[in-house]
């Protein structure tokens, strides 16, 4: 029986996606997320919804220490998600019984990725192969099928190397390249019922900047990317068209429920 997908950290963005002043629109298990880094570098993963009138916070304003909702100017603080300003009140005090807070999710930043968990307690994201070694985050690929299907396909695929299970929710791809052995860790983000994002983190001396390494890296990256895209095309051509989701509330609950079902 598979462990539940909800009580785990999953990648929801690449670290590089959280550029200064930007609020990134992410998705995990059907839950829409506003993922952003505050002025001090701390990541936040919030429900992408102002608790006042449901406005997406990804289209709000990044204030450094918080986010301002575009619709009515309500402000929410980094970290706690607590509402700190309500412009429609003017000089009046916020009524004490009003405790407005964005729904926040546990968030970590590790291995060049930003991770979030929908459950309050989840074991820390650990990929032993990436600890203490140099690594590089490659391009992520969106595949329009369930994460389970992607994991199975990776296990059975004749990729350009050996794919073995690594930590939960990940696959370890090892292969020999022309110059030396390479390892890429593949981590599958269950974005929605029928949408997965495959993140790739390569182990190795990618930071080295001599021209041989650079051209070798380009070849490796484009080769890996082409193979992931081929996998995507194969998976999507055999899957039925994803059904339209009705509402965020029901679809995220449904997605979580289905993903928890052991197969």
């Amino acid at each position: 029986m598979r462990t539940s997908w909800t009580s785990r950290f999953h990648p929801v963005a690449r670290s590089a996606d959280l550029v200064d002043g930007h609020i990134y629109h992410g998705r995990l298990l059907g839950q829409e997320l506003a993922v952003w880094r505050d002025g001090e570098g701390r990541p936040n993963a919030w429900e992408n919804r102002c608790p006042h009138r449901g406005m997406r916070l990804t289209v709000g304003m990044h204030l450094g220490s918080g986010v301002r909702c575009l619709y009515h100017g309500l402000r929410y603080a980094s970290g706690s998600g607590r509402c700190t300003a309500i412009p429609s009140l003017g000089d009046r005090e916020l009524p004490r019984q009003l405790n407005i807070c964005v729904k926040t999710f546990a968030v970590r930043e590790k291995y060049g990725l930003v991770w979030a968990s929908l459950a309050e307690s989840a074991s820390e994201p650990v990929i032993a192969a990436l600890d203490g070694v140099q690594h590089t985050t490659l391009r992520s690929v969106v595949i329009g099928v369930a994460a389970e299907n992607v994991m199975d396909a990776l296990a059975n695929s004749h990729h350009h190397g050996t794919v073995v299970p690594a930590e939960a929710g990940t696959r370890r791809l090892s292969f020999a390249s022309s110059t030396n052995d390479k390892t890429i860790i593949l981590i599958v983000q269950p974005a929605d019922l029928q949408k997965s994002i495959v993140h790739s983190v390569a182990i190795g001396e990618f930071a080295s900047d001599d021209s041989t390494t650079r051209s070798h890296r380009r070849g490796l990256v484009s080769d890996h990317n082409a193979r992931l895209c081929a996998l995507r095309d194969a998976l999507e051509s055999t899957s039925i068209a994803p059904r339209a989701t009705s509402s965020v509330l029901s679809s995220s609950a449904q997605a979580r429920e289905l993903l928890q079902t052991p197969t």
Partner: protein
Amino acid sequence: MQLEIDTKATTGGQGDAIACDPALHDDWHVVARAEECAQGALMRVRLCGRRYVIARGHDGSLSAVADNHEGGSGPLPGPAVIEAYGLVWMCPGIPARGVLSFPQFTDPQFQVVLCGPYGIATSGPRIIENFLDMAHFPFIHPGILGQEPDTAVAGYKVEVDAASGDLMALDCSFWQPPTSVLTHGGSVVHYEYRVPRPLSAILTKLPEAPGGLGVSILLTVQPVEPERSVAWILFATTNRQKTPLELRAHQERIFMQDKPILENQQPRRLPLSPKDEMALPCDRLSMAYRRYLSDSGMRFGVIARDAG
């Protein structure tokens, strides 16, 4: 006039909501501009997940039939269709009352321009609720309907008009910067809101002094699907110095500022339970509107209170 009806299509789930929606089924909804319906021509329209065909006979009268997907046998009951305020209104059931009242349309003091139709990818109630909201003026319509830092919403009265049953907000006021349509310096503008039907609302800007400029705006929403709507606006003003084109451009500019807001509210259906979204003191009209929809049994485009 003989209408061709497609009865081959399979029975779909579409349209089930309207049949059991007491708030919409026996009421009138705008489906077209009157001048769009040419004599002897057919026009396809959509309302509450169903398709209809409207025809204008050679005597100028309008008639409608379901562009039927249920494929039933026997004569189809034609939905009621009439013309009012330059618009075509349709009632899918048995009309419980007349088309809502907008007396400014025939008042010689007012010039009236039709704005729209504007397709909006959200539910009708979200569109109406946004129209009833003053607190967003400085943020979404800066320099037109409001301006930071004047963001405070003063208290106002909410009541149900005993005679009509309309939901009303009285003594509303908001600081508004100088605009070209209401020629005044920045000042406090007084408003009244009236909600005569679940998907229609009228905003009236009261003149600053007797004989001053007045504005009345009717917004009515054609519910196409639970999360897809078409907005129609009748903009009536006593300002006769502006051309219809200028007035329409002004109203369109404002509405196009609202559109991206409306299409980014989640969920798209309006939650009617007070627990689902946090209400602020300025949201008394919004909360009353949600109660009003709940009381009227509205289901199309809302998340009902009893839905958990």
